[in-house]
């Protein structure tokens, strides 16, 4: 393998007409022209690689930027927000001392190619965003979508993804406190793996990604750099290698090492606490390229890097390989010269590699040398902040009007009591509603000893401070079917559900993160869906008075020309002053009253019933009422504070029937239910009207609870009583289902489908 001359800045100057594979790297003609313009010459290979990565959709948000601006414009002003959109993750104040940072991110495509490692590195990546804010990661969540549960490829992808999420989280020692798992044929060739992490920090430990302070040293922490994930820029290889090199050796798959990540967490926190770092940034997608250009652009504007100092895992790596590598478990720290020795020593104590690779300058240029020859010399902001911005065309999908009139409310319904009874069982056994413990049992949920509520609760609740009892609640929700019918309302429904799930635990929602999974932005229909969804979320958050603090956009989720359902996944964070007052899922004690807050309308379009029993998707999704949601949240946090509820459970997919099934199976108690006069049992059980919560009121509190509802104008309907002696669901005047039969339907489905 003989190497040709290094493509230095000098060489680039001297050979202006050299043909460059910019199109193969995904750069448009005008983008390439702009790069030449910025540099006043042709880019070197390393520079070309850097621009191609930083100006990609994934890093530059070039298609989504113009729409995401709405979040900033509509976000309510709140003193809680300590860091917002644009940072590695949003940070919100919890009390005088503590702040919390959280974010959700996608790792969809890698998880299809290599389910276990793809999912694992997705978890690893989001954890490093949390560390970069100065926080200790304290929990993870995962939102998963697969094709049909019965499809053979799901048997490959699902166990791998779950193993990856579990392995990485378990091994770094983070409890998994919730998530969702849904199945739909639209995700067959394009599963979704969205991972959320949350961390806690003393407010004064908040870190920045600024490379400031001329003369400060740039230190690379963590794993060695290999060829991981450089598939994209490998077209440059043929230009530099005379002898062809095995293309197999340029894997796009990255393998995670949670052990090194754990060491990174501990070492970084020690460095923060000792006040040894000026700036910190994780290396995620786009690796060093992104970390160097973002820290330099955010800081004093200049940086000099000696690339040959980067510890390598593979032989024969070229400068552009090193810059583009997405090797996992690495962070970049900016450190004052006087502290360098200490930083290196502390890293060594944790068994972590740490290497000084450059320093901050005031040149306004990011200069990268390789063995003394300059291969990169660019203004860092041109990479990090000044990428292309597109105003892509939008157009409403042609079929939407037709779909809207194809309402599920007109579908044939179960008529007799026996048919309704059968439907309850069939729905409980359906892939989207069945018990997910085959998945969640592969996740540690109790490490740290602070998990107050985990799966199968509506939201995860974690204690932050043992002395004060203050804690947080988080829920992650999305519904691609609703969003397919109406992306604006669908996104708002996801927001409303996550908000309500948090409220149901007694916590007060305070902030939002989102992961927007869509098809190709080059498709005007997809772009329209995207714009509607973003607007829906921004409008919803404005009404709810809680800001979007960060998130992630994942485009190109499609198989051929077939895009997935637009799938905005929303994470809502809430705060609860005293976690011992949280409201659990379940039934309390015999004699407690079961009631429902909210109104049940005939809303079946997009419902789980329409899908599970008719494979039908049409009509318009349920209505959202944010005023109502806010009143509901206020009520629940009040009732939690006064300990006037024994239990609560959000009504969502599958409606009241499913909420009862879950409460019965979880509490191992029975429910005697009497539907209100004149209520149609089918509609009452299966409608998916939103804003509804099943509550359990301890004896003696009924009047007080009713009063609190009336005071807020919230309709409350008594439904029955808890009965520990009769076990199962008893619907007076209609039917009985014993608990054994319910559990037989609900449990063990996933294992059975996977052949275990």
């Amino acid at each position, binding site marked *: 393998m003989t190497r040709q001359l290094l493509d230095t800045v000098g060489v680039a100057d001297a050979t202006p007409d050299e043909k460059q594979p910019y199109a193969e790297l995904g750069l448009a003609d005008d983008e390439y022209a702009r790069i030449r313009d910025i540099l006043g010459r042709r880019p070197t290979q390393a520079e070309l690689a850097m621009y191609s990565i930083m100006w990609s959709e994934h890093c530059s948000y070039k298609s989504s930027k113009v729409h995401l601006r709405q979040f900033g414009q509509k976000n309510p002003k709140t003193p809680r927000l300590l860091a917002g959109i644009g940072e590695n993750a949003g940070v919100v104040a919890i009390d005088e001392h503590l702040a919390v940072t959280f974010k959700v991110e996608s790792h969809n495509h890698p998880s299809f190619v290599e389910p276990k490692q793809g999912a694992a590195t997705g978890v690893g990546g989001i954890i490093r965003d949390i560390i970069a804010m100065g926080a200790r990661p304290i929990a993870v969540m995962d939102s998963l979508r697969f094709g049909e549960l019965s499809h053979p490829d799901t048997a490959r992808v699902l166990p791998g993804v779950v193993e990856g999420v579990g392995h990485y989280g378990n*091994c770094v020692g983070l409890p998994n406190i919730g998530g969702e798992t849904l199945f739909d044929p639209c995700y067959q060739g394009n599963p979704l793996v969205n991972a959320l992490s949350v961390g806690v920090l003393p407010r004064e430990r908040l870190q920045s990604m600024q490379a400031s302070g001329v003369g400060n040293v740039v230190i690379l922490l963590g794993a060695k750099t290999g060829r991981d994930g450089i598939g994209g820029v490998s077209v440059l290889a043929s230009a530099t290698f005379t002898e062809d090199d095995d293309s197999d050796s340029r894997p796009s798959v990255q393998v995670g090492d949670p*052990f090194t990540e*754990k060491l990174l967490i501990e070492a970084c926190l020690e460095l923060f606490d000792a006040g040894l770092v000026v700036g910190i940034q994780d290396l995620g997608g786009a690796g060093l390229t992104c970390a160097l250009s973002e820290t330099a652009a955010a800081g004093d504007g200049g940086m000099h890097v000696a690339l040959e100092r980067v510890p390598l895992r593979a032989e024969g790596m070229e400068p552009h390989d090193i810059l583009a590598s997405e090797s996992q478990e690495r962070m970049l720290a900016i450190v004052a010269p006087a502290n360098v020795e200490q930083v290196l020593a502390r890293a060594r104590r944790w068994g972590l590699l740490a290497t000084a690779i450059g320093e901050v300058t005031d040149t306004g240029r990011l200069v990268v040398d390789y063995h003394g020859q300059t291969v990169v010399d660019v203004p860092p902001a041109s990479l990090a902040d000044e990428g292309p911005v597109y105003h892509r065309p939008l157009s409403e999908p042609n079929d939407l009007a037709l779909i809207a009139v194809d309402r599920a409310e007109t579908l044939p319904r179960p008529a007799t009591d026996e048919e309704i009874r059968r439907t309850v069982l069939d729905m409980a056994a359906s892939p989207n509603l069945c018990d997910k413990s085959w998945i969640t*049992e*592969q996740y540690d949920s*109790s490490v740290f*000893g*602070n998990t107050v509520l985990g799966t199968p609760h509506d939201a995860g609740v974690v204690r932050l401070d043992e002395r004060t009892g203050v804690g947080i609640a988080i829920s992650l929700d999305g519904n691609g079917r609703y969003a397919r019918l109406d992306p604006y309302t669908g996104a708002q429904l996801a927001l409303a559900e996550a908000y309500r799930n948090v409220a149901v635990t007694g916590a007060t929602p305070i902030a939002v993160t989102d992961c927007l999974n869509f098809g190709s932005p080059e498709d005007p229909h997809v772009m329209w869906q995207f714009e509607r969804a973003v607007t829906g979320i921004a409008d919803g958050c404005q009404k709810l008075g809680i800001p979007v603090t960060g998130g992630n956009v994942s485009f190109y989720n499609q198989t051929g020309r077939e895009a997935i359902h637009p799938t905005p996944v929303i994470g809502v964070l809430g705060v609860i002053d005293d976690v011992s007052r949280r409201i659990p899922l379940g039934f309390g004690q015999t004699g407690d009253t079961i009631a429902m807050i909210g109104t049940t309308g005939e809303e079946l379009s997009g419902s789980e019933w329409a899908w599970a029993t008719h494979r039908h998707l049409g009509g318009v999704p349920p209505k959202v009422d944010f005023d109502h949601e806010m009143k509901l949240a206020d009520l629940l946090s009040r009732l939690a504070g006064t300990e006037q509820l024994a239990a609560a459970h959000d009504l969502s997919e599958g409606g009241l029937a499913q909420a009862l099934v879950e409460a019965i199976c979880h509490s191992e108690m029975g429910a005697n239910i009497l539907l209100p006069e004149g209520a149609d049992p089918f509609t009452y059980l299966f409608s998916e009207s939103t804003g509804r919560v099943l509550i359990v009121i301890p004896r003696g509190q009924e009047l007080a609870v009713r009063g609190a509802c009336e005071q807020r104008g919230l309709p409350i309907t008594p439904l029955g009583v808890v009965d520990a002696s009769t076990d199962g669901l008893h619907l007076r005047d209609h039917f009985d289902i014993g608990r054994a039969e319910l559990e037989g339907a609900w449990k063990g489905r996933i294992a059975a489908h996977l052949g275990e």
Partner: protein
Amino acid sequence: MSARIGIVTFPGSLDDRDAARAVRLGGAEPVALWHDDAVLKSVDAVFLPGGFSYGDYLRCGAIARFSEVMGVVREAASRGMPVLGVCNGFQVLCESHLLPGALVRNAHLRYRNRPARMRVESVDTAWTNEYAPGAEVVFPAKHGEGRYVADEATLDRLEANGQVVFRYLDNPNGAMRDIAGIANEAGNVVGLMPHPEHAVEALTGPSTDGLGIVASVLAARPASRTFDQPV
């Protein structure tokens, strides 16, 4: 002065803070011990917590065995100091030959997290003397490699000597003879897979049965005895 219980942090230990909380809630003083320091800081007992030491690569606990601290732990254990290993800590004790047998991949091949019901089979150990004989306890069990194996002769010996300390009531991993935890012959070294330190608060655990572990080692503490390396 309250008893001092050392808690070892290996690279990859995860439950060290949780073990410290359990020790505190149980009325003793937690003392942090570092894997790379051959010092026991005058502790009265040592707790090897769960986690994935060295990533649990190769075999769980295999690499941790070679740490500096394990040299002094082994020495102190031979002089009677109480040593507890939970989950990864149990694996480290087996790999270090402080306890017989080995912990291998769960029979069902998956990591599984489920509360484990167990019977306390022996109360003649430094870590279980405060439990009622035959008491039922519930601790979270969460591991991928927790199936206890040993040859028949060893198993028979363990049974005969009362060295089987905890036995599963619903075996979660295929462990031989439903063994969840064992002791050495002297009863000062105990290892178990399920996590007592995650069963110390009603708010966060499936029970508070784990507090009995700390209570036991407090009760077992000889009046004035130090297990530090002789100088």
